[in-house]
Protein backbone atom coordinates (compact mmCIF):
# COMPACT_ATOMS: atom_id res chain seq x y z
CA UNK A 1 0.00 0.00 0.00
CA UNK A 2 1.43 3.36 -0.96
CA UNK A 3 1.57 6.15 1.57
CA UNK A 4 -1.15 8.78 1.38
CA UNK A 5 -0.01 12.09 -0.11
CA UNK A 6 0.94 14.63 2.52
CA UNK A 7 -1.13 17.61 1.45
CA UNK A 8 -0.34 19.95 4.25
CA UNK A 9 3.40 19.64 4.23
CA UNK A 10 4.44 23.27 4.46
CA UNK A 11 6.45 24.41 1.44
CA UNK A 12 9.67 26.30 2.03
CA UNK A 13 8.27 29.47 0.54
CA UNK A 14 4.83 30.62 1.60
CA UNK A 15 4.74 33.56 -0.80
CA UNK A 16 7.00 34.87 -3.48
CA UNK A 17 6.89 38.12 -5.42
CA UNK A 18 8.88 37.84 -8.64
CA UNK A 19 9.91 41.03 -10.41
CA UNK A 20 6.64 42.82 -9.63
CA UNK A 21 5.59 46.02 -11.35
CA UNK A 22 2.39 47.42 -9.91
CA UNK A 23 0.54 50.67 -10.46
CA UNK A 24 -2.72 51.92 -9.00
CA UNK A 25 -5.72 52.21 -11.32
CA UNK A 26 -5.73 55.51 -13.18
CA UNK A 27 -2.11 56.32 -12.33
CA UNK A 28 0.50 56.25 -15.08
CA UNK A 29 3.55 55.29 -13.06
CA UNK A 30 4.57 52.14 -11.24
CA UNK A 31 4.40 52.25 -7.45
CA UNK A 32 6.33 48.98 -7.30
CA UNK A 33 9.21 48.65 -9.75
CA UNK A 34 10.75 45.24 -10.24
CA UNK A 35 10.21 44.22 -6.63
CA UNK A 36 11.17 40.67 -5.68
CA UNK A 37 10.58 39.14 -2.26
CA UNK A 38 10.57 35.64 -0.83
CA UNK A 39 8.48 34.97 2.26
CA UNK A 40 9.58 31.81 4.04
CA UNK A 41 6.92 29.58 5.55
CA UNK A 42 6.60 30.16 9.29
CA UNK A 43 8.46 33.45 9.48
CA UNK A 44 7.48 36.96 10.44
CA UNK A 45 8.60 39.38 7.76
CA UNK A 46 8.32 43.12 8.38
CA UNK A 47 8.13 45.60 5.50
CA UNK A 48 9.60 48.98 6.40
CA UNK A 49 10.25 52.12 4.40
CA UNK A 50 9.31 55.78 4.15
CA UNK A 51 5.84 56.95 3.12
CA UNK A 52 5.23 56.18 -0.52
CA UNK A 53 7.91 53.49 -0.70
CA UNK A 54 5.38 50.82 -1.73
CA UNK A 55 4.76 48.86 1.50
CA UNK A 56 0.95 48.95 1.35
CA UNK A 57 0.99 48.36 -2.39
CA UNK A 58 3.14 45.28 -1.94
CA UNK A 59 0.82 43.94 0.79
CA UNK A 60 -2.16 44.51 -1.51
CA UNK A 61 -0.45 42.89 -4.49
CA UNK A 62 0.50 39.84 -2.39
CA UNK A 63 -3.15 39.53 -1.37
CA UNK A 64 -4.43 39.95 -4.96
CA UNK A 65 -6.12 43.20 -4.12
CA UNK A 66 -4.18 44.94 -6.91
CA UNK A 67 -3.40 43.71 -10.40
CA UNK A 68 0.27 43.34 -11.25
CA UNK A 69 1.41 44.99 -14.47
CA UNK A 70 4.41 42.71 -14.82
CA UNK A 71 5.80 39.88 -12.73
CA UNK A 72 4.20 37.15 -10.67
CA UNK A 73 3.08 36.39 -7.15
CA UNK A 74 3.37 32.74 -6.16
CA UNK A 75 1.47 31.25 -3.24
CA UNK A 76 3.13 28.06 -2.07
CA UNK A 77 4.73 27.81 -5.51
CA UNK A 78 1.57 28.30 -7.59
CA UNK A 79 0.70 31.54 -9.40
CA UNK A 80 -1.70 33.68 -7.40
CA UNK A 81 -3.83 34.15 -10.52
CA UNK A 82 -4.64 30.43 -10.63
CA UNK A 83 -6.17 30.37 -7.14
CA UNK A 84 -9.98 30.36 -6.93
CA UNK A 85 -11.17 32.91 -4.38
CA UNK A 86 -12.17 30.51 -1.64
CA UNK A 87 -9.00 28.48 -1.94
CA UNK A 88 -6.91 31.63 -1.77
CA UNK A 89 -8.85 32.81 1.28
CA UNK A 90 -7.95 29.55 3.03
CA UNK A 91 -4.28 30.26 2.36
CA UNK A 92 -3.95 34.02 2.70
CA UNK A 93 -5.79 36.58 4.82
CA UNK A 94 -5.19 40.30 4.43
CA UNK A 95 -6.10 42.99 6.90
CA UNK A 96 -6.04 46.47 5.41
CA UNK A 97 -4.82 49.45 7.39
CA UNK A 98 -8.27 50.79 8.13
CA UNK A 99 -10.91 48.14 7.41
CA UNK A 100 -14.42 49.48 6.93
CA UNK A 101 -16.81 48.21 9.58
CA UNK A 102 -20.47 47.74 8.66
CA UNK A 103 -22.63 49.53 11.21
CA UNK A 104 -24.26 47.32 13.82
CA UNK A 105 -22.07 44.29 13.09
CA UNK A 106 -21.20 42.52 16.32
CA UNK A 107 -17.77 41.22 17.16
CA UNK A 108 -18.95 37.64 16.93
CA UNK A 109 -20.62 38.18 13.55
CA UNK A 110 -17.41 39.72 12.22
CA UNK A 111 -15.30 36.82 13.43
CA UNK A 112 -17.77 34.35 11.93
CA UNK A 113 -17.12 36.00 8.55
CA UNK A 114 -13.66 34.45 8.77
CA UNK A 115 -15.24 31.00 8.36
CA UNK A 116 -16.92 31.77 5.03
CA UNK A 117 -14.13 30.27 2.89
CA UNK A 118 -14.54 27.03 4.82
CA UNK A 119 -18.30 26.52 5.00
CA UNK A 120 -20.57 24.97 2.37
CA UNK A 121 -22.82 26.57 -0.19
CA UNK A 122 -25.51 27.60 2.32
CA UNK A 123 -23.02 29.34 4.55
CA UNK A 124 -24.13 27.68 7.79
CA UNK A 125 -21.49 27.34 10.45
CA UNK A 126 -21.13 23.84 11.89
CA UNK A 127 -20.02 22.94 15.41
CA UNK A 128 -16.37 22.91 14.34
CA UNK A 129 -16.71 26.39 12.87
CA UNK A 130 -18.39 27.63 16.05
CA UNK A 131 -15.55 26.19 18.11
CA UNK A 132 -12.95 27.90 15.92
CA UNK A 133 -14.76 31.24 16.24
CA UNK A 134 -14.88 30.88 20.02
CA UNK A 135 -11.20 29.98 20.09
CA UNK A 136 -10.31 32.99 17.93
CA UNK A 137 -12.22 35.31 20.26
CA UNK A 138 -10.34 33.83 23.22
CA UNK A 139 -6.98 34.09 21.45
CA UNK A 140 -7.25 37.86 21.17
CA UNK A 141 -8.94 38.19 24.58
CA UNK A 142 -12.09 39.73 23.23
CA UNK A 143 -14.61 36.99 24.03
CA UNK A 144 -16.35 39.16 26.63
CA UNK A 145 -17.25 41.67 23.88
CA UNK A 146 -18.71 39.13 21.46
CA UNK A 147 -22.20 40.66 21.42
CA UNK A 148 -21.06 44.28 21.18
CA UNK A 149 -21.29 46.21 17.91
CA UNK A 150 -17.85 47.01 16.56
CA UNK A 151 -18.43 50.75 16.68
CA UNK A 152 -18.74 50.49 20.47
CA UNK A 153 -15.15 49.25 20.80
CA UNK A 154 -11.95 51.23 21.19
CA UNK A 155 -9.47 51.31 18.30
CA UNK A 156 -7.30 48.63 19.88
CA UNK A 157 -10.23 46.34 20.63
CA UNK A 158 -11.59 46.74 17.12
CA UNK A 159 -8.19 45.88 15.66
CA UNK A 160 -8.12 42.75 17.81
CA UNK A 161 -11.60 41.81 16.58
CA UNK A 162 -10.41 42.00 12.97
CA UNK A 163 -7.39 39.87 13.83
CA UNK A 164 -9.74 37.34 15.46
CA UNK A 165 -11.59 37.21 12.17
CA UNK A 166 -8.33 36.51 10.38
CA UNK A 167 -7.48 33.80 12.92
CA UNK A 168 -10.88 32.18 12.35
CA UNK A 169 -10.09 32.16 8.65
CA UNK A 170 -7.20 29.78 9.50
CA UNK A 171 -4.90 31.15 6.81
CA UNK A 172 -1.34 29.98 6.45
CA UNK A 173 -0.28 33.51 5.67
CA UNK A 174 -1.51 36.67 7.33
CA UNK A 175 -0.86 40.01 5.59
CA UNK A 176 -1.23 43.07 7.81
CA UNK A 177 -0.95 46.65 6.63
CA UNK A 178 0.32 48.84 9.47
CA UNK A 179 -1.55 46.94 12.19
CA UNK A 180 -0.17 49.16 14.95
CA UNK A 181 -1.13 52.50 13.42
CA UNK A 182 -3.55 54.57 15.53
CA UNK A 183 -2.90 52.40 18.60
CA UNK A 184 -1.42 53.72 21.80
CA UNK A 185 1.93 52.32 22.95
CA UNK A 186 0.53 49.65 25.25
CA UNK A 187 -1.89 48.37 22.60
CA UNK A 188 0.91 48.37 20.03
CA UNK A 189 2.98 46.05 22.22
CA UNK A 190 -0.01 43.85 22.99
CA UNK A 191 -0.85 43.52 19.32
CA UNK A 192 2.72 42.68 18.35
CA UNK A 193 2.90 40.08 21.13
CA UNK A 194 -0.32 38.59 19.82
CA UNK A 195 1.18 38.32 16.33
CA UNK A 196 4.31 36.63 17.70
CA UNK A 197 2.10 34.20 19.62
CA UNK A 198 0.08 33.42 16.48
CA UNK A 199 3.29 32.79 14.63
CA UNK A 200 4.94 30.64 17.28
CA UNK A 201 1.89 28.66 18.43
CA UNK A 202 0.03 28.21 15.15
CA UNK A 203 2.86 28.50 12.66
CA UNK A 204 1.11 31.31 10.79
CA UNK A 205 3.41 33.10 8.38
CA UNK A 206 3.05 36.82 8.95
CA UNK A 207 3.92 39.70 6.64
CA UNK A 208 3.30 43.12 8.14
CA UNK A 209 4.11 46.66 7.12
CA UNK A 210 5.20 48.83 10.00
CA UNK A 211 6.68 52.29 10.51
CA UNK A 212 8.43 51.79 13.84
CA UNK A 213 11.82 50.26 13.08
CA UNK A 214 12.46 49.15 16.67
CA UNK A 215 9.14 47.32 16.67
CA UNK A 216 10.06 45.74 13.34
CA UNK A 217 13.39 44.58 14.76
CA UNK A 218 11.66 43.29 17.88
CA UNK A 219 8.96 41.28 16.17
CA UNK A 220 10.37 40.15 12.81
CA UNK A 221 12.63 37.27 11.83
CA UNK A 222 13.54 39.24 8.72
CA UNK A 223 13.01 42.78 7.53
CA UNK A 224 12.50 43.98 3.95
CA UNK A 225 13.36 47.63 3.40
CA UNK A 226 11.48 49.34 0.58
CA UNK A 227 12.61 52.51 -1.12
CA UNK A 228 10.87 54.26 -3.99
CA UNK A 229 9.01 51.16 -5.05
CA UNK A 230 12.01 48.87 -4.94
CA UNK A 231 13.22 46.35 -2.41
CA UNK A 232 16.40 47.92 -1.08
CA UNK A 233 17.53 45.03 1.13
CA UNK A 234 16.12 41.97 2.90
CA UNK A 235 17.54 40.06 5.83
CA UNK A 236 17.69 39.69 9.59
CA UNK A 237 16.98 42.99 11.38
CA UNK A 238 20.42 43.24 12.94
CA UNK A 239 22.03 43.14 9.47
CA UNK A 240 19.54 45.17 7.48
CA UNK A 241 18.59 47.91 9.92
CA UNK A 242 21.90 49.72 10.07
CA UNK A 243 23.06 53.31 9.92
CA UNK A 244 23.73 53.16 6.15
CA UNK A 245 20.20 51.94 5.45
CA UNK A 246 18.70 54.73 7.52
CA UNK A 247 20.76 57.28 5.58
CA UNK A 248 20.06 55.84 2.13
CA UNK A 249 16.38 55.11 2.57
CA UNK A 250 15.09 57.33 5.39
CA UNK A 251 17.62 60.15 4.90
CA UNK A 252 18.41 60.38 8.60
CA UNK A 253 21.62 60.13 10.60
CA UNK A 254 21.33 57.58 13.40
CA UNK A 255 23.22 55.58 15.98
CA UNK A 256 22.12 51.97 16.24
CA UNK A 257 23.26 49.67 19.00
CA UNK A 258 22.51 46.02 19.47
CA UNK A 259 21.51 45.15 22.99
CA UNK A 260 20.12 42.09 24.67
CA UNK A 261 16.53 43.19 24.12
CA UNK A 262 17.07 43.99 20.44
CA UNK A 263 18.17 47.01 18.44
CA UNK A 264 18.12 50.49 19.93
CA UNK A 265 18.02 53.36 17.47
CA UNK A 266 18.76 56.98 18.15
CA UNK A 267 17.81 59.31 15.30
CA UNK A 268 20.15 62.30 15.20
CA UNK A 269 18.56 64.31 12.38
CA UNK A 270 18.46 64.66 8.59
CA UNK A 271 21.43 63.27 6.66
CA UNK A 272 22.72 62.81 3.13
CA UNK A 273 22.43 59.34 1.62
CA UNK A 274 25.51 57.23 0.95
CA UNK A 275 24.06 55.78 -2.23
CA UNK A 276 22.60 58.01 -4.89
CA UNK A 277 19.41 56.04 -5.57
Amino acid at each position, binding site marked *: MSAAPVENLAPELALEAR*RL*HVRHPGV*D*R*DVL*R*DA*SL*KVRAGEILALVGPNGSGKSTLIRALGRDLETRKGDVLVEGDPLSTYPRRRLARRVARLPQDPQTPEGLTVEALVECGRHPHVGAFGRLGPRDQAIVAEALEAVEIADYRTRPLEMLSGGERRRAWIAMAIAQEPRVLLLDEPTSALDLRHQFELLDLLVRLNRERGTTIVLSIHDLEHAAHVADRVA*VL*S*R*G*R*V*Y*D*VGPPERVLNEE*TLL*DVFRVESRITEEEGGLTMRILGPGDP*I*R*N*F
Partner: protein
Amino acid sequence: MSTEATPLPKEFLNWQVALRLFTMTDRNGAPHIGVVPTVTVKRPGAHLGVIQHSIVCGLLPHPRLLESKTNEFRSLYEENIEEGARAVYDVGIQYLLDYYDSSDDFDPGTITSLVPEDCALVDALKAEPKCTLSFNVFATEDPQTIGAPRCQQLDCDVEILSEGPVYDNVWWHNTLFHGMADEHVVLRFKHQRSWDTRFGGIQALRG
Protein backbone atom coordinates in the same frame (compact mmCIF):
# COMPACT_ATOMS: atom_id res chain seq x y z
CA MET B 1 17.54 64.59 -40.29
CA SER B 2 20.38 62.64 -38.70
CA THR B 3 23.79 64.26 -38.59
CA GLU B 4 27.18 62.80 -37.77
CA ALA B 5 28.95 63.82 -34.58
CA THR B 6 32.33 65.46 -34.61
CA PRO B 7 34.81 64.23 -32.00
CA LEU B 8 34.72 65.93 -28.62
CA PRO B 9 37.98 67.65 -27.65
CA LYS B 10 40.14 64.85 -26.28
CA GLU B 11 40.96 66.91 -23.22
CA PHE B 12 37.25 67.28 -22.45
CA LEU B 13 36.61 63.54 -22.85
CA ASN B 14 39.59 62.73 -20.60
CA TRP B 15 38.20 65.16 -18.00
CA GLN B 16 34.77 63.52 -18.16
CA VAL B 17 36.25 60.03 -17.73
CA ALA B 18 38.33 61.24 -14.76
CA LEU B 19 35.28 62.88 -13.15
CA ARG B 20 33.27 59.70 -13.48
CA LEU B 21 36.03 57.58 -11.98
CA PHE B 22 36.25 60.11 -9.13
CA THR B 23 32.49 59.79 -8.70
CA MET B 24 32.95 56.05 -8.13
CA THR B 25 36.07 56.17 -5.94
CA ASP B 26 35.19 59.16 -3.78
CA ARG B 27 31.45 59.84 -4.08
CA ASN B 28 29.94 56.33 -4.14
CA GLY B 29 28.18 57.18 -7.38
CA ALA B 30 26.70 60.57 -6.47
CA PRO B 31 27.10 62.66 -9.66
CA HIS B 32 29.76 65.35 -9.62
CA ILE B 33 28.55 68.77 -10.79
CA GLY B 34 30.84 68.31 -13.78
CA VAL B 35 28.54 65.63 -15.19
CA VAL B 36 25.38 67.68 -14.67
CA PRO B 37 25.34 70.22 -17.52
CA THR B 38 22.61 72.73 -18.24
CA VAL B 39 20.81 72.04 -21.51
CA THR B 40 19.55 75.07 -23.39
CA VAL B 41 17.04 74.63 -26.21
CA LYS B 42 15.23 77.17 -28.33
CA ARG B 43 11.56 77.34 -27.44
CA PRO B 44 9.48 80.04 -29.14
CA GLY B 45 7.18 81.71 -26.62
CA ALA B 46 9.32 80.80 -23.62
CA HIS B 47 11.07 83.51 -21.58
CA LEU B 48 14.01 84.76 -23.71
CA GLY B 49 12.95 82.18 -26.29
CA VAL B 50 14.75 79.25 -24.66
CA ILE B 51 14.20 76.66 -21.96
CA GLN B 52 16.93 75.31 -19.71
CA HIS B 53 17.18 72.09 -17.74
CA SER B 54 19.90 70.44 -15.69
CA ILE B 55 20.48 66.81 -16.61
CA VAL B 56 22.79 64.07 -15.44
CA CYS B 57 24.67 63.04 -18.55
CA GLY B 58 26.62 59.94 -19.47
CA LEU B 59 29.28 58.72 -21.83
CA LEU B 60 28.50 56.05 -24.38
CA PRO B 61 30.84 53.08 -24.82
CA HIS B 62 32.80 53.06 -28.06
CA PRO B 63 30.80 51.36 -30.87
CA ARG B 64 33.15 48.36 -30.75
CA LEU B 65 32.23 47.84 -27.04
CA LEU B 66 28.61 48.99 -27.02
CA GLU B 67 26.83 45.65 -27.20
CA SER B 68 29.15 43.83 -24.79
CA LYS B 69 28.91 46.61 -22.19
CA THR B 70 25.11 46.62 -22.45
CA ASN B 71 25.09 42.87 -21.86
CA GLU B 72 27.36 43.28 -18.86
CA PHE B 73 25.12 45.98 -17.31
CA ARG B 74 22.11 43.77 -17.83
CA SER B 75 23.80 40.68 -16.37
CA LEU B 76 24.92 42.58 -13.29
CA TYR B 77 21.35 43.68 -12.70
CA GLU B 78 19.68 40.33 -13.38
CA GLU B 79 22.15 38.41 -11.24
CA ASN B 80 21.80 40.64 -8.22
CA ILE B 81 18.30 42.14 -8.13
CA GLU B 82 16.90 39.35 -5.95
CA GLU B 83 19.38 40.47 -3.28
CA GLY B 84 17.84 43.94 -3.40
CA ALA B 85 18.50 47.30 -5.00
CA ARG B 86 21.36 48.03 -2.60
CA ALA B 87 23.27 44.93 -3.74
CA VAL B 88 22.79 45.91 -7.39
CA TYR B 89 23.99 49.43 -6.65
CA ASP B 90 27.11 48.19 -4.90
CA VAL B 91 28.12 45.74 -7.65
CA GLY B 92 27.43 48.53 -10.15
CA ILE B 93 29.91 50.80 -8.39
CA GLN B 94 32.51 48.02 -8.28
CA TYR B 95 32.04 47.40 -11.99
CA LEU B 96 32.38 51.05 -12.94
CA LEU B 97 35.65 51.39 -11.01
CA ASP B 98 37.26 49.50 -13.90
CA TYR B 99 34.91 50.82 -16.56
CA TYR B 100 36.13 54.41 -16.47
CA ASP B 101 39.69 53.61 -17.39
CA SER B 102 40.49 55.23 -20.73
CA SER B 103 38.69 57.76 -22.92
CA ASP B 104 39.55 55.51 -25.89
CA ASP B 105 36.83 53.14 -24.66
CA PHE B 106 34.10 55.71 -25.20
CA ASP B 107 32.29 57.06 -28.23
CA PRO B 108 34.34 60.13 -29.22
CA GLY B 109 31.40 62.31 -30.23
CA THR B 110 28.44 61.40 -28.02
CA ILE B 111 26.99 62.45 -24.67
CA THR B 112 23.77 60.80 -23.45
CA SER B 113 21.04 61.26 -20.89
CA LEU B 114 17.90 59.38 -19.80
CA VAL B 115 14.91 61.66 -19.20
CA PRO B 116 11.13 61.27 -18.80
CA GLU B 117 9.48 61.14 -22.19
CA ASP B 118 6.77 63.65 -21.25
CA CYS B 119 8.99 66.48 -19.97
CA ALA B 120 9.25 70.01 -21.39
CA LEU B 121 12.84 69.40 -22.47
CA VAL B 122 11.82 66.54 -24.74
CA ASP B 123 8.95 68.60 -26.16
CA ALA B 124 11.37 71.40 -27.00
CA LEU B 125 13.91 69.02 -28.54
CA LYS B 126 11.23 67.41 -30.70
CA ALA B 127 10.54 70.85 -32.16
CA GLU B 128 14.21 71.90 -32.38
CA PRO B 129 16.65 68.95 -32.15
CA LYS B 130 19.64 71.12 -31.32
CA CYS B 131 20.92 72.41 -27.99
CA THR B 132 23.90 73.61 -26.04
CA LEU B 133 25.29 71.71 -23.06
CA SER B 134 26.99 74.01 -20.53
CA PHE B 135 29.44 72.43 -18.09
CA ASN B 136 30.44 74.84 -15.31
CA VAL B 137 32.82 73.66 -12.58
CA PHE B 138 34.25 76.54 -10.56
CA ALA B 139 35.89 74.50 -7.79
CA THR B 140 37.65 71.18 -7.81
CA GLU B 141 38.10 68.88 -4.84
CA ASP B 142 41.07 67.01 -6.20
CA PRO B 143 43.08 68.84 -8.91
CA GLN B 144 45.55 65.95 -9.19
CA THR B 145 42.80 63.54 -10.16
CA ILE B 146 40.11 65.56 -11.86
CA GLY B 147 41.99 68.61 -13.03
CA ALA B 148 41.39 72.34 -12.74
CA PRO B 149 38.04 74.17 -12.74
CA ARG B 150 36.56 74.16 -16.20
CA CYS B 151 33.67 75.75 -18.10
CA GLN B 152 32.71 74.46 -21.50
CA GLN B 153 29.86 74.74 -23.88
CA LEU B 154 29.08 72.00 -26.40
CA ASP B 155 26.80 72.69 -29.31
CA CYS B 156 25.01 69.49 -30.23
CA ASP B 157 22.45 67.96 -32.52
CA VAL B 158 20.10 65.70 -30.62
CA GLU B 159 18.43 62.37 -31.31
CA ILE B 160 15.54 61.23 -29.12
CA LEU B 161 15.65 57.45 -28.82
CA SER B 162 13.10 55.03 -27.41
CA GLU B 163 14.75 51.82 -28.65
CA GLY B 164 17.92 50.47 -30.20
CA PRO B 165 21.44 49.68 -29.01
CA VAL B 166 22.22 53.18 -27.69
CA TYR B 167 18.91 53.33 -25.82
CA ASP B 168 19.49 49.86 -24.34
CA ASN B 169 22.98 50.74 -23.14
CA VAL B 170 21.93 53.96 -21.38
CA TRP B 171 18.78 52.36 -19.95
CA TRP B 172 20.59 49.36 -18.42
CA HIS B 173 23.38 51.55 -17.06
CA ASN B 174 20.75 53.72 -15.35
CA THR B 175 18.86 50.64 -14.11
CA LEU B 176 21.87 49.50 -12.07
CA PHE B 177 21.53 52.56 -9.88
CA HIS B 178 17.97 53.81 -10.15
CA GLY B 179 15.90 50.78 -11.11
CA MET B 180 13.83 50.19 -14.20
CA ALA B 181 12.68 53.48 -15.68
CA ASP B 182 9.59 53.07 -17.83
CA GLU B 183 8.35 55.90 -20.01
CA HIS B 184 11.80 57.43 -20.41
CA VAL B 185 13.70 58.29 -23.56
CA VAL B 186 17.40 58.58 -24.23
CA LEU B 187 18.78 61.84 -25.53
CA ARG B 188 21.80 61.31 -27.74
CA PHE B 189 23.76 64.55 -27.95
CA LYS B 190 25.94 64.54 -31.06
CA HIS B 191 28.75 66.97 -30.59
CA GLN B 192 29.16 69.61 -33.31
CA ARG B 193 31.54 72.16 -31.80
CA SER B 194 32.87 73.27 -28.41
CA TRP B 195 33.62 76.53 -26.63
CA ASP B 196 35.69 77.40 -23.60
CA THR B 197 33.45 79.77 -21.65
CA ARG B 198 35.51 80.23 -18.51
CA PHE B 199 35.67 83.80 -17.13
CA GLY B 200 33.22 84.96 -19.77
CA GLY B 201 35.65 84.32 -22.59
CA ILE B 202 34.35 82.40 -25.55
CA GLN B 203 37.04 80.53 -27.32
CA ALA B 204 36.60 77.79 -29.84
CA LEU B 205 38.17 74.50 -28.76
CA ARG B 206 39.82 72.28 -31.28
CA GLY B 207 39.44 68.51 -31.16
